[in-house]
């Protein structure tokens, strides 16, 4: 729950609630004059000045724009947040409508901002009570606004910055060893120019012995989603625009809000389709090896491949295992740890052929071979020496865990997980047991429209006091809408069973505290 004053909560619980809201948009994406960017030879290193964002990158600089206030034109605001199961990644989407009676938001019109009505405009939305409008959303508009001439309105949809980052390709190759989830996340965010002030990452549980990604081959989402699945923590962009990560055992566990007959307007239950009583985890557990032959081929790499006289040609080698620190090969068997041979008319060529450079990726290696002879040569017998990360045991590891009692009651409900970030049996066991602990029993999932409080956040625990639905619940999706002078909050909640994890030097042996999976 966002930190608010007791007076704010009093207003939220009051009989007559004075709503407030706000919409701030930077259509022209001008920077705030109060933000000073780092100037070489003038700014102090580690001082207060910010590095200017490179190019037009609103994701990098969402905090630095000068936002215009369009609150007076608001017709409605709707912000929705939900957990992407089973990735533990939160995505937020916002819809808002503005009064456009004068065509101010109409593209290609006489509006003074007409040329700035474009996609990816930074937006901040707020909802609250009286003088306190709480931040609810920061993101970018998606597409062009929907203009209704008859209604005189402009309707926008926006996605949070993290969702935009997921779709962006990785900008630099990553090869890391013995890293935690939070360290990988930090590496990715740094690639997109984010400063540590823009994210808050708790120390993760998972340690990944070896990990690699190639520039441009995957999006940030391709990495972050399975990374978070393996961790089963939570990654989200909070209402103030800070990216936050919390591991699975550091989620809120005490109720922060209370709802009863007087504060629940509607209540519905959901189906039991989220039961999981059998988890099958498949992972290629890799371990970085000591320097050794990482690749070898005997004979010609390609019968048709010829390097003409006095020219250079690339030789592309796909590596079966990601490999780092490859020693550059030289001409002639045993001439170095890595080597290759060249032939001409069946005769081995011993000079005039050499390496003009390499392009080293973790999953491929390209040799640029230069032939300075006056005759063409073919390349054969390549041996590369390096440090490959081989699959432990030679094949993928499969871990199987199920809850007999639940299978008997509800039939088998399997969740298959294929995730190479799960790099040890203990990690797989921990993830599987956590999933079974949370999902193997039928737990009411309720959707309630409440007399809401915009300070409530996803994952908060709430206390419900309403007939047979009474108990503690975790908020798994939240929708806050202000329209027609009404604040509508709809919460999807999952029954929560408190767990007290055993803490060394704090918990008593044989007490009710249980070992964390």
């Amino acid at each position, binding site marked *: 729950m966002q930190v608010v004053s007791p007076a704010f909560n009093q207003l939220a619980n*009051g*009989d*007559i*609630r*004075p*709503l*407030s*809201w706000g919409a701030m948009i930077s259509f022209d994406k001008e920077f705030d004059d109060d933000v000073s960017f780092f100037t070489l030879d003038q700014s102090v290193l580690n001082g207060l000045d910010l590095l200017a964002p490179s190019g037009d990158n609103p994701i990098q600089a969402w905090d630095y724009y000068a936002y215009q206030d369009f609150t*007076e*034109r608001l017709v409605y605001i709707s912000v929705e947040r939900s957990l992407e199961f089973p990735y533990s990644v939160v995505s937020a989407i916002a819809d808002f409508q503005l*009064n456009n*009676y*004068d065509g*101010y938001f109409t593209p290609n019109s006489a509006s003074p901002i007409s040329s700035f009505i474009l996609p990816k405009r930074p937006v901040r939305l707020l909802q609250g009570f009286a003088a306190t409008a709480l931040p609810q959303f920061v993101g970018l508009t998606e597409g062009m606004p929907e203009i209704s001439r008859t209604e005189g309105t402009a309707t926008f949809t926006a996605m949070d910055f993290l969702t935009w980052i997921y779709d962006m390709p990785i900008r630099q190759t990553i090869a890391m060893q013995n890293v935690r989830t939070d360290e990988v996340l930090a590496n990715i965010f740094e690639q997109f120019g984010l400063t540590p002030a823009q994210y808050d990452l708790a120390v993760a549980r998972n340690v990944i012995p070896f990990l690699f990604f190639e520039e441009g081959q995957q999006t940030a989402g391709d990495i972050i989603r399975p990374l978070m699945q393996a961790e089963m923590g939570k990654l989200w962009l909070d209402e103030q625009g800070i990216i936050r990560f919390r591991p699975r055992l550091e989620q809120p566990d005490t109720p922060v809000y209370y709802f*009863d*007959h*007087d*504060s*629940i*307007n*509607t*209540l519905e239950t959901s189906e039991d389709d989220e039961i999981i009583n059998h988890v099958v985890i498949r992972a290629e557990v890799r371990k970085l090896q000591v320097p050794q032959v990482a690749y070898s081929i005997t004979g010609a790499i390609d019968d048709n491949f010829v390097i003409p006289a006095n020219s250079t040609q690339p030789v592309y080698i796909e590596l079966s295992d990601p490999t780092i620190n490859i020693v550059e090969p030289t001409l002639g068997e045993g001439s170095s740890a890595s080597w290759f041979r060249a032939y001409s008319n069946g005769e081995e060529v011993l000079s005039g052929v050499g390496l003009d450079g390499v392009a080293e990726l973790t999953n491929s290696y390209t040799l640029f071979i230069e032939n300075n002879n006056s005759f063409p040569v073919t390349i054969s017998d390549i041996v590369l020496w390096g440090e490959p990360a081989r699959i432990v045991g030679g094949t993928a590891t499969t871990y199987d865990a199920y809850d007999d009692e639940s299978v008997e009651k509800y039939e088998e409900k399997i969740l298959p997980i294929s995730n190479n970030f799960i790099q040890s049996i203990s990690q797989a066991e921990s993830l599987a047991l956590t999933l079974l602990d949370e999902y193997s029993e039928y737990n009411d999932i309720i959707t309630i429209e409440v*007399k809401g409080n915009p300070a409530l956040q996803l994952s908060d625990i709430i206390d419900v006091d*309403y007939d047979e639905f009474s108990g503690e619940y975790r908020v798994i999706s939240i929708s806050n809408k*202000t329209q*027609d*002078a*009404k*604040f509508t909050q709809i919460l999807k909640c999952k029954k929560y069973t408190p767990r007290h994890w055993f803490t060394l030097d704090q918990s008593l042996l044989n007490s009710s505290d249980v070992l964390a999976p």
Partner: protein
Amino acid sequence: MEYKILLTDSDGTHELPALEVPLTRENYEKMTTVEALSGNVYDDYISTKRIWTHTWAYLSKEEYDLLDEIYERAKSEFTYPLLTINGEAVADVVVRYELSPKNIVDNCGNVQGVSVTFRETRQLGS
């Protein structure tokens, strides 16, 4: 205290004809009543605006034309006038202004039953 209505626009501040009774003010509450499962209710509201109405039994042609000019100027200049009511705590409040039809009742151009409505708002374009 003498009650007077003043309207200000780009042409200056104009004093409207002397008031008759009643000068009515009502509050326009943008409010929604929500019923909880218990049957009890609470109210959400986002704004309160004021609406003033007044009717003159008769106005001269000149008096009506003044009101009409202010109304037409608002439309041609895309901006609402500012309302001041001496005697009430109302000073330079942006108002949407409505004027009843011109109902001429004699050869002098006198107009019968002239109503004005001022609805508090804000200049959205500014």
